[in-house]
């Protein structure tokens, strides 16, 4: 091993001039943006830029994670996130196994930790987990020595979604510091909102959340965000808006009696965007309810970056898998 190190003590690296981030990644897991430093977030974004270049090559594949096994363990339905993680893993030459709740031992009552330990015994290297309980990814990571990546846990965090949102913003606006981002929609039930707030505020953006009063969680001001229940107010000074899916299936408070009613009060329409900055960026994590939180013309309009977000998601997930797989050992989370 010493010899291997020697072989690569490349002369150019000894002198080491790096114009990019030189932060060293030490975490075996990615559980949420709350637990990352500004520098670690920027490292993921910088690496994702390099991986985006890989996706533009004639052969969109690199041998970096050859021989590694990545398990997508999904307790909740997901199309975009699961396919995105699967593609990211395959572009890195890893082997991928998908486990969904239906048709697995999860239905026979096996606990999350038991499933995780079995996957570890089967020599998996990384588990990507989506679960309906907040904290599930952290619980799993503490029980295992292998890497755990949170693909969404309850109402807690969805770090890779926020990272791809921020990556898309950085691509468009060059800088995150000082920009105004409004997150509009069901904040109370949204892990996407929570991860975005952590990430954006750490990078110095000013964040406003906008929702019906019933869907604003108490204590949200502690996260250093402005709160409003006026959509016009949220749009007015924003450089970007991130419009969340109205999750009627989770709206126990029945804050809104109907979709039409929601669209009238909170829907993002072309009419409302007329009062916005001309180049306002319109984002949505998907899946979109057209005519509920956003008009179809806005989703397909010139300001929308919704499909670019999807493409960027692969680059972000490649960066995350690459970093947790090569975490510098010694200091674990």
């Amino acid at each position, binding site marked *: *091993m010493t010899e*291997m*190190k*020697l*072989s*690569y*003590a*490349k*002369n*150019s*690296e*000894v*002198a080491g*001039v*790096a114009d*990019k*981030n*030189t932060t*060293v*990644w030490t975490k075996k897991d990615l559980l949420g943006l709350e637990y990352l430093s500004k520098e670690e977030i920027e490292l993921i974004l*910088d*690496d994702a*830029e*390099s991986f985006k*270049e*890989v996706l533009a*090559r*004639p*052969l969109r*594949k*690199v*041998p*970096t994670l050859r021989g590694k096994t990545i398990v997508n363990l999904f307790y909740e339905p997901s199309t975009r996130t699961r396919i995105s993680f699967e593609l990211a893993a395959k572009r890195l030459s890893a082997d991928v196994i998908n486990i969904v709740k239906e048709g697995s031992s999860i239905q026979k009552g096996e606990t999350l930790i038991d499933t995780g330990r079995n996957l570890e015994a089967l020599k998996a290297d990384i588990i990507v987990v989506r679960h309906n309980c907040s904290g599930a990814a952290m619980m799993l990571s503490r029980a295992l020595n292998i890497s755990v990546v949170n693909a969404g846990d309850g109402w807690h965090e969805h770090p890779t979604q926020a990272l791809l949102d921020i990556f898309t913003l950085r691509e468009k606006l060059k800088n995150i510091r000082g920009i105004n981002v409004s997150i509009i929609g069901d904040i109370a039930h949204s892990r996407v909102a929570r991860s975005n707030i952590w990430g954006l505020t750490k990078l110095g953006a000013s964040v406003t959340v906008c929702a019906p009063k019933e869907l604003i969680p108490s204590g949200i001001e502690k996260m250093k965000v402005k709160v409003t229940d006026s959509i016009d107010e949220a749009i007015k000074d924003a450089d970007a808006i991130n419009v969340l899916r109205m999750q009627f299936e989770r709206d126990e408070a029945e804050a809104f009696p109907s979709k039409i009613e929601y669209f009238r009060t909170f829907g993002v329409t072309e009419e409302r965007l007329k009062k916005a900055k001309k180049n306002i960026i319109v984002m949505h994590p998907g899946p979109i309810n057209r005519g509920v939180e956003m008009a179809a013309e806005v989703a397909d309009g010139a300001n929308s970056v919704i499909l670019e977000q999807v493409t960027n998601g692969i680059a972000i997930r490649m960066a995350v898998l*690459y970093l947790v*797989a*090569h975490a*510098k050992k010694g200091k674990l989370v």
Partner: protein
Amino acid sequence: MREKAKLLDKDGIKNAVIRISHEIIEKNKDTENLVIIGIRNRGEYLAHRIAESIENIVKSRIPVGILDITLYRDDLTEVAEQPVLKETIISFDITGKRLVLVDDVLFTGRTIRCAMDQLIDFGRPRVIQLAVLIDRGHRELPIKADYVGKNVPTSLNEVIEVKLAEVDDRDEVIICEK
């Protein structure tokens, strides 16, 4: 690290680049299809210098690309330092081209192995040749340079430091003892 000797100064590097450029032209009469690709970090700057020097002689544009080999390394989990990931920039098709790969120092040959694996994923060049500023020996793979600025016999506890004005404060090559 203690500096032992200066191997090349500014003029020494300049002359090596000019000589390598002439040798490349001599060996590849068909400079129409010539492309030059430098390996990050310092191979990139040498590639640009060699391309410029060839352009001055043949009076035509020579495409230059930059290769970051990080994702193709065979020792990613074992390296002492976490490498900084950067972009590969090759904005032309390398298939059918006479490709000269450029790096600052040829040592074990593992970097060149990574670079060739990666290039072959980008296309099928007619030929790949290798140009290095310094060949310090100690190969661990059957790889040989076609163009060498200076051959330097070294021991394993020595380090070659290449400094180039584009990223360092000056042009020079020194040998140090660890």
